[in-house]
Each structure stands twice: as structure tokens, then as C-alpha cells.
């Protein structure tokens, strides 16, 4: 039975790679990772890098090394050459009154501000003991845009997985091949499971590649995948029902778009809405998954949190299942 379930998956994948829309969906996470890498500096590079002149101020260099990656150069020329490289590095040079910050010009403001703050703290003699959580937090901040986009892309990949299912169900309906499969020993449940796999495994593989390619390889992959899988239960159900309700691939793919609104709303809620409005989004599974993945990417999620979020999504998924499963069974007869 399990073997046959994979036979269905392999067929779906093979045919999916022959269809322009499906192919695009399958490679989406990798494309998206490329885009992120081109337009947003890498995660590792955004640890703030500072360039200092060797031997100029040993005590300052030691101080700054607590908060940033300090590189030392023996001449201003060598430092300038380094500053011209693509990543974010800020040179600190002695000036007439205090210090001069030298930048290439394209560094994010936050990084420049951070460097400024560090130099100022040093000038005022603020020690590590004096520093509050604030400054340390500031130091660890990844570019929020990147984390946001990657977390969003994981959610999006899950929805696209549902779209793959919808497309393949529409094809089975148009070719009328379900009846041919129905006169083989493969059970109805086996068929549904087999057709689900492409909507689960493709987003999982895509997410792993996405995280690897965008510098998040070190995050807790198990937590991300758990969150993704609970969300995918819902995406898969929606994919089936849209496949059953549509007779045209374009319509089926387009009808999945109804999920984009709650998806974007959830991202917006987590990112910009105040604490007291959050409850308005509690019913949306994307909200919890986004929140969870965002925390995992920031290395600040505990298993307790992740299990809580995944549990909430699983409960919502259970409700969706109860509503849609009978219609799906009926629709595949």
C-alpha cells in the first residue's frame, strides 16, 4: 500500500515537471532564495563588521570586539579596499574631534547607527556590565526584512503545495483517470494519501533548500518542518477541494488565491500590528505558523512555543478536515 502511495507521488512529480505552472511552483522556493540573496545581504554578513587600524587604539578594539566582528588593518588603504567589498563593514578612523565612521554608502541604516552607538558608548566609558539587554539585542538583530521574507516564503510554499494538488486533481478529472485507478487494488484512502504527498513533500524539500540557501541552515529544522506540516494539512485539504470544484487548471490555481489574503494579513499582523489587536488573527492558521517560524529563524523559539503554535494549527486543521473530508471523498467517486 505504501509503495503504491509513492507510485502516485512519483507520477504526480514527473507530470508536474512537464507542466509550466507546476514546474514553476516546484522550483519557487529556490528561485525565491536566489532573489533574497541577490537583493538582501546575507545573514552572516549582517553581524556588524568593524574595520579598525591596527595598533591605533588597542583598548577600543578590545571593547568593540565584544559587540561586533572587528577586523584590523595596517593602513588606511588596506582598510578602504576592504570597505569597498559588498558586505556591510564600517571603518572607524581617528578624526580631528573623536572618530570618523567610514562606510561604502549602501550599508543599512541600522548597522551604521549601531556602529555609531558603539563608538559613543565607548567614548562615554559604558562597560559591558553597564549595557542592558537593549544593546545586546540590537547587536543580534538580523535584517528583519530577510527573516520576514523567508518565513513568508515557507508559508507560501505550503499554499503552493495545495495548488499542485488542485492542478493534478483537475487533470485526473479532465482525463477521467480516477475511474481507472478505482478499478485497481489501491484503496480510496491510499489514493487520497498518494495525491496528498506532492503537496507535502515538495514544500518540505523547498523549505529545506530555501533555509539552506538563505543562510538559515543552522536553525532548528525540526521545528520549522513541524510547523510547516501542520499548515500543510490545511493547504492539502484546500487543494483537494479546489481541484474537485474546478474543471480547468488555471481556475483551480487561481482559486487557491483566496488563501493569500489571510496569509498576508497574518504577516502584517505579526510584523506591524499592536499587541492588543493580535487576538483578531488567532483564528488564522497562517498567523501561528508565521509567528512560530519567525521565532525559529531568530533562534528564539522554544519547543514549548512551537508545540503550542503547531497544536493550535492542528486543531484549526481538524475543523477544516471535518468540514471538507466528506466532500472530498464524495468528489473523488
Amino acid at each position: 500500500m505504501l509503495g503504491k502511495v509513492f507510485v502516485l507521488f512519483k507520477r504526480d512529480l514527473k507530470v508536474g515537471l512537464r507542466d509550466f505552472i507546476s514546474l514553476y511552483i516546484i522550483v519557487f522556493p529556490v528561485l525565491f532564495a536566489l532573489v533574497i540573496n541577490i537583493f538582501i545581504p546575507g545573514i552572516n554578513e549582517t553581524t556588524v563588521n568593524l574595520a579598525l587600524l591596527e595598533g591605533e587604539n588597542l583598548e577600543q578594539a578590545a571593547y568593540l570586539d565584544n559587540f561586533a566582528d572587528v577586523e584590523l588593518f595596517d593602513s588606511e588603504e588596506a582598510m578602504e579596499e576592504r570597505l569597498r567589498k559588498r558586505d556591510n563593514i564600517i571603518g572607524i578612523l581617528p578624526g580631528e574631534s573623536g572618530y570618523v565612521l567610514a562606510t561604502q554608502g549602501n550599508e543599512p541604516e541600522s548597522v551604521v547607527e549601531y556602529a555609531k552607538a558603539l563608538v559613543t558608548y565607548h567614548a562615554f566609558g559604558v562597560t559591558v556590565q553597564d549595557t542592558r539587554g537593549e544593546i545586546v539585542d540590537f547587536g543580534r538583530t538580523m535584517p528583519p526584512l530577510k527573516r520576514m521574507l523567508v518565513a513568508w516564503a515557507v508559508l507560501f510554499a505550503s499554499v503552493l503545495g495545495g495548488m499542485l494538488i488542485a492542478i493534478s486533481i483537475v487533470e485526473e478529472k479532465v482525463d477521467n483517470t480516477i475511474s481507472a485507478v478505482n478499478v485497481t487494488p489501491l484503496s480510496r484512502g491510499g489514493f487520497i494519501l498518494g495525491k496528498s504527498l506532492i503537496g507535502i513533500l515538495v514544500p518540505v524539500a523547498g523549505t529545506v533548500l530555501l533555509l539552506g540557501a538563505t543562510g538559515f541552515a543552522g536553525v532548528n529544522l525540526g521545528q520549522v518542518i513541524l510547523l510547516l506540516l501542520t499548515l500543510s494539512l490545511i493547504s492539502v485539504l484546500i487543494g483537494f477541494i479546489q481541484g474537485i470544484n474546478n474543471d480547468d487548471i488555471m481556475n483551480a490555481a487561481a482559486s487557491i488565491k483566496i488563501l493569500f489574503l489571510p496569509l498576508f494579513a497574518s504577516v502584517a499582523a505579526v510584523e506591524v500590528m499592536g499587541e492588543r489587536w493580535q487576538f483578531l488573527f488567532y483564528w488564522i492558521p497562517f498567523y501561528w505558523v508565521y509567528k512560530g517560524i519567525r521565532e525559529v529563524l531568530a533562534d528564539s523559539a522554544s519547543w514549548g512555543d512551537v508545540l503550542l503554535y503547531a497544536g493550535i494549527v492542528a486543531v484549526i486543521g481538524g475543523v477544516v478536515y471535518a468540514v471538507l473530508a466528506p466532500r472530498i471523498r464524495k468528489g473523488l467517486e
Partner: protein
Amino acid sequence: MISVRNLYHSYSNDDKYAVKDVSFEVKEGEVFGFLGPSGAGKSTTQNILTGLLQLQKGEVAVAGYNIKKIDNRMFNEIGMSFEESNLYGKMTAKENLDFYRKLFDVETRDSMDLIRIVGLQGKENIRTKEFSKGMKHRLTFARSMINNPRIWFLDEPTTGLDPAIASEIKDIIREENKKGVTVFLTTHNMYIADELCDRVAFIVDGEIRLIDSPKSLKLAYGDKLVDVEYIKDGKVLKETFSTVMEEDKQRLIRVIGSHDIQTMHTKEATLEEIFIKVTGRGLV
């Protein structure tokens, strides 16, 4: 091999029956034909027998399995060729068969062998959406024997095929039947029924009117038909009368008594003529 008792089916779940009180038995190794005009309920019956339609009322057993609650293992023992071909358009002929083979638990036939048997060699690597209607139909037919079925359900296996190919399909069916395969065949083509079937059921409006072998039907009706050409109101009319059916005998007497007869021949009845005589309906 197949036993059907008091089978009813209504698509609207009321008393508008597409199949009404149908009962019959198919013996092992037999070719059993369901002969009737389109809309008679042939496909409906076959779809119930193969589990594609839920059994509503009646008792059905296929290969020893009760259809009320289908055991999926039954599908290892039956094959089904569909009236409308149903293939994956984005897969080649060979890929379609290779995929289908893997869904069975029993030994299956080689895809290329089957492609050759139905004359599609050279076309195996073409996606089936490029196929003509006839080619699709042949591949669907070939697919139905992939698991070496003991019972083979064929829904209109030759309809829409050109005569040469239809004749090849007929030979394949005969060939498989010789190996012991039981065949349940629906058709509205009386030549196919005549040539292939050990027994036929005449079905009209969801009801079986008669079950017999073509041979004994011809014994009962053959040589006992008379073609008569006679003149009525200045026009030449042609009519066929049975010399065994009481109603026809009386009419024949009246025609001879009151009109000028031009020609009168006895002849062997075709299955179609017998069908018309028995059911009062044509086969289209």
C-alpha cells in the same frame, strides 16, 4: 463467476430506474454479452459490477466477492475497459501502462507486449493527448488486461473503431477467452455479439427481455422469417414477418388475403432482427 440478482439502480435515488430488476449469471470461461440500444442501462450495470457505482439494491457477486462491501483484492482479478478512453494525456503510452502496472499486487504483463498486441508499436513514447480517438481506445483496452484478469469487463470495446481494428480487437478477445478468461461484454453492435458471445442478454429500458445463446435464438427465429413485398395504395411496401409469433402470423395472413404480393422469401434472421422482433426496438 458473476451472479446478479434483482439489481436496481437509480441515479436520482428515486423510482426512476436506469436498471430494473436485472438478474443473470455468468459462468466461468463464458463470453456473456449485454446487447441493447444506447441508454438501455448496460454501462450502469457494468459499473455496479466493477464497483465504480455504489450498489443500491440487489445481490451481486463477482469472482466470489460480494459487491455490497468491496474487498480491494477483487481488483487483482478483474479488468475493465472503459467505453470512453481514460488515459493520462501528459504521459506517453508506455508510461501510462508502466504506472498502472504498479498499482496491482499480482503479476502484470509487459507494457511493450501489450502495446504491440493492440498495434501501437512505434507510438509508445508519444504522449497520449496526441493520440487519435481510436488509438486511445486501443490503449485503454490494452490496459484492461495488464493484470491478467480472470474476469474481463469490456464496455463497447469496438465502438467507434474502424472495421479492421475492430476485427483485431475481436480476435484478441477470442484469444484471451480461449485461455480461460471470462468475458462480460456490453455492446450495441450485434455482429460482435453474434460472433463472440456464448450467450447474450437483450436489455431495453433497464430491463432484461431475454437471455439465450445466439445459436438457439437463430434456431428459434431463423428460417422462420419471411420478407414480403406487396402493393398497397399503388405503393410497394416491404415487411418482415415471423412465422412463429402469433401476431405476425395473423398479419401475414391478412396481407396475403388483401394485397397483391410481389415477392416472398424466407430467410435466416440476424441477431438484430431477432432483437427487434423480441423487444420491438432497434439497436441504435
